[in-house]
């Protein structure tokens, strides 16, 4: 597929905190860079040298397997050394503070911090306090920029362009960092985004966001080119935003039956991990329209691009 390459672009951000702050050109540049890295994973020796001698720390304060492994692998493929730091915290005020942890790691000479934390804003806080590059791997329900990037990367791969593209994001929008990062990336690139959820899972003042809102998946499914099904995050829900899982699935689950109304070439996406049978039936998750595993694969290339670019920007700024 031929596409105009964003040529001679000078990437300047030594941190990737979120997609809200990036322009369409910058997002496109990351995607183009990622495209170049995809080839490395097809080699018999899956390694390239750009981060040789650099240290990446995976600072994960929240459960994650997919994102953490993806970052580790991405860093390894670029020849960086990786430190894994996993700590589940429920109370941050107990023991060492986050900043102390980060500054201690910095004293050991790290170059890039990949951080996941349950509190929104933590990557920004870190970026203000330490010299290393900061890459947000998910903060509270604010942003998950590399997920947003791999989602648009995947869509671009299959659909070519975002012009006139209609994308539904379905599920717990209110507590989803994926929905927010997706929204910023997709709308900046020119797609139309529709949030589909019960009103109790739609965030406040959504009218000021660049999206449409629908409470009916049945109405939306016929119109969209892409559908991204979010995981119901039971750990984040406060109170009970819907009466039962059964009722939720009835209205908002992506079933085989519902898929019959969709466009034949609809892309079915999910950031994982899937609650099979809840937001999506297994037949759909594993069906011909599903690109869920493709997303995971693309995540690697996107994360390699991000690590590469922030490191390059830091080197330039020195």
């Amino acid at each position, binding site marked *: 597929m031929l596409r105009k390459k964003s040529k001679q672009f000078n990437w300047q951000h030594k941190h990737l905190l979120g997609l809200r702050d990036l322009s369409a050109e910058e997002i496109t540049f990351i995607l183009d860079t990622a495209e170049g890295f995809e080839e490395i994973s097809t080699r018999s020796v899956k390694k390239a040298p750009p981060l040789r001698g650099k240290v990446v720390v995976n600072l994960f304060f929240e459960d994650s397997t997919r994102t953490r492994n993806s970052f580790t692998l991405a860093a390894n493929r670029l020849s960086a050394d990786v430190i894994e730091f996993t700590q589940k915290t429920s109370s941050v*005020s107990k023991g060492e503070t986050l900043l102390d942890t980060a500054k201690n790691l910095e004293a050991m000479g790290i170059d890039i911090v990949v951080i996941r934390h*349950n509190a929104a*804003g933590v990557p920004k806080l870190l970026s203000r306090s330490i010299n290393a590059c900061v890459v947000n791997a998910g903060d*509270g329900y604010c*942003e998950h920029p590399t997920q947003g990037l791999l989602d648009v990367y995947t869509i671009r791969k299959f659909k070519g362009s975002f012009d006139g593209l209609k994308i539904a994001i379905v599920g717990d929008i209110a507590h989803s960092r994926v929905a927010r990062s997706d929204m910023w990336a997709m709308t900046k690139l020119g797609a139309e985004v529709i949030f589909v959820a019960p009103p109790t899972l739609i965030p406040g003042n959504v009218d000021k966001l660049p999206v449409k809102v629908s409470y009916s998946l049945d109405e939306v499914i016929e119109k969209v080119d892409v559908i991204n099904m979010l995981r119901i995050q039971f750990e984040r829900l*406060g109170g009970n935003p819907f009466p039962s899982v059964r009722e939720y699935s009835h209205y908002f689950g992506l079933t085989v039956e519902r898929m019959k109304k969709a466009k034949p070439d609809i892309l079915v996406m999910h950031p994982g991990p899937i609650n099979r049978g809840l937001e999506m039936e297994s037949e759909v998750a594993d069906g011909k329209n599903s690109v869920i595993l493709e997303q995971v694969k693309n995540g690697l290339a996107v994360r390699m691009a991000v690590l590469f670019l922030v490191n390059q920007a830091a080197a330039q700024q020195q």
Partner: protein
Amino acid sequence: MANELLIKNGRVIDPANGVDKKCDVLIVDGFVAEVGRIDKQAKDIIDATGKIVTPGLIDMHVHFREPGDEEEETIASGSAAAVAAGFTSVVCMPNTKPPIQSETDVEYIHRKGRQARKTHVYTMGCITKDSEGIELAEMGFMAEAGAVGFTDDGGGVQDPAVMLRAMKYVTMFDKVIAQHCQDDSYGKDGVMNAGYNSTVLGLPGIDILAEEAMLWRDIQLVKKTLVRYHAQHISTAGSVELIRQAKKMSLPVTCEVTPHHLLLTDDCCADYDTNFKVNPPLRTASDVEALKEAIKEGLVDALVSDHAPHLKSEKELEFLAAPFGIASLECALSLYVKALIEPKVIDWPQLISLMTNRPAQIIKIDKGTLSKGKQGDVTIINPDFEYTIDTSVFRSKSCNCPYDGWKVKARVEKTIVGGEVRFEI
């Protein structure tokens, strides 16, 4: 010879007596002896030409953290900050560790205040034991010990039946019952205003309904009990409307407003700077306008700092985890001038009234005027003096103050408490 202090040629503003004129104030043996043209010699003379001379300012909502969190503030450090900011009387909130909920607790605050020898230090007591909202605290004993009112500040009394019981009971002592209006069923976990900003920042919000629903409920309870009720730090346009209606009905309802709710909005939280994390949270520009309009209309009865000191190490935590609070006592007057005088919302006499006689009426203390025979508490202000707020020179032990570096006007030059100069530049 009597101990005489003569303050000459200032612009004397004494709202309770309708005074706003260039004249002199004579204090003899710690009490106001005369206000007017005074042609006599006194032992001590202060030339206040070009200055504003007012009754000592009153802040009826501060947190001095003692007992329990003395690393953040003490009554000594807090009252040193207060007197440097022109305040001669402050009212401590009872949410200390342990909370102020017995007569000995109240006496402890008073003693620490006396020992600090800076300002008059008053305190409110808890409405309910441990501010848990379940059983009533010993409000009678606390009233006898001199508590000026009752509040579970830091949170609201959730159970309407408990609040009704508290209100009924307090009518026996003629004390004000003050409420931090926050119905926890709307966004108990919130850390900032619920709105566009909380949505894009991914932070849990505190809905305006949390404040307004409780204020509405309390006003219904006031109708039933006719107790003197004070809504603390109101922050929303909806609360202003509720106060307006209550006052129309001539209910004994008063309210207060903080400088941060007049100067800052939730846009300030965009960088997750926890110095902007405060409860009630910073709201929107239209709420700020509604509060200013309320002040203009006379619906607001007191300006208060809600001085809430916290350690830098606590405020350096994640926005989600950091404690609520802004420490602004030391620059409060300049902030009110910026919010209210500079944009001509109100004039100096109106501002001084909101910081002297009107709060004094709410807490029923015999202060806030320069009437003959009253205690000689006087503040002398240079209204045109411009300076830059510098938290590093604060007398307060904490500097969680988002106004650091702001250019402001109006400096307190002398603070006189009971005829004694307790602060001067």
